[in-house]
């Protein structure tokens, strides 16, 4: 079944995907501008750009996985074991993105000793936000797993 909500969600996913591609293109541009303004941290431009592009890539993979799961919902096969692998992929993306972000913030705040309020606020926010998202996904994965078990059992009823 294809509902209005799932169609609108697909439109939103396409917009978000285009937005993330644009962001990936802009990251090195902004980084080189910053490097010109603050030449003392110029050496950080390339590694931080790479890290941020990778974080955005994680978001892109997760968006594509949501698209795939949405197709499974539309096809009526969301309650099959195959769906769990895709949810695992979202969890993996969230873990990688969170670890990368925290790594950059820790490096910026405690090794480069810069960043100021960005690190002071960004680090706990990223830590709590990333952790909450990953844990929420794990809880929802558990719900999906029990729904699959129920559906599988019900399919055997004649």
């Amino acid at each position, binding site marked *: 079944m294809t509902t209005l909500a799932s169609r609108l969600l697909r439109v939103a996913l396409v917009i978000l995907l285009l937005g993330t591609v644009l962001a990936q293109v802009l990251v090195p541009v902004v980084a080189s501008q910053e490097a010109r303004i603050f030449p003392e941290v110029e050496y950080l431009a390339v590694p931080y750009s790479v890290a941020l592009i990778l974080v955005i890539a994680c978001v892109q993979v997760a968006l594509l996985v949501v698209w795939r799961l949405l197709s499974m919902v539309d096809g009526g096969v969301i309650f099959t074991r195959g769906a769990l692998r895709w949810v695992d992929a979202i969890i993996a993306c969230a873990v990688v993105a969170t670890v990368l972000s925290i790594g950059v913030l820790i490096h910026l705040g405690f090794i480069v000793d810069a960043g100021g309020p960005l690190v002071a606020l960004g680090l706990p926010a990223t830590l709590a936000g990333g952790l909450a998202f990953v844990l929420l996904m794990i809880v929802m994965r558990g719900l999906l797993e029990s729904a699959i078990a129920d559906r599988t*059992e019900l399919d*055997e*009823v*004649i």
Partner: protein
Amino acid sequence: MALIVELDVMLARRKMSVGDFANAVGITPANVAVLKNGRARAIRFSTLDSICRVLDCQPGDILRWTADPPA
């Protein structure tokens, strides 16, 4: 579980083919086969109701319990 579905006997007694029976009960012939060869793990009361109506019998006429699982 040692519950045996004795559908063969009742179908033969009513001179009904599997296809006609499946049609009359409203289940697929594949599910009739599952019932007949003892691979069924659960049956809806509504299905049992239809089967009894179609075969004009009681549940006990098609379900039999034995202490030992059939070999």
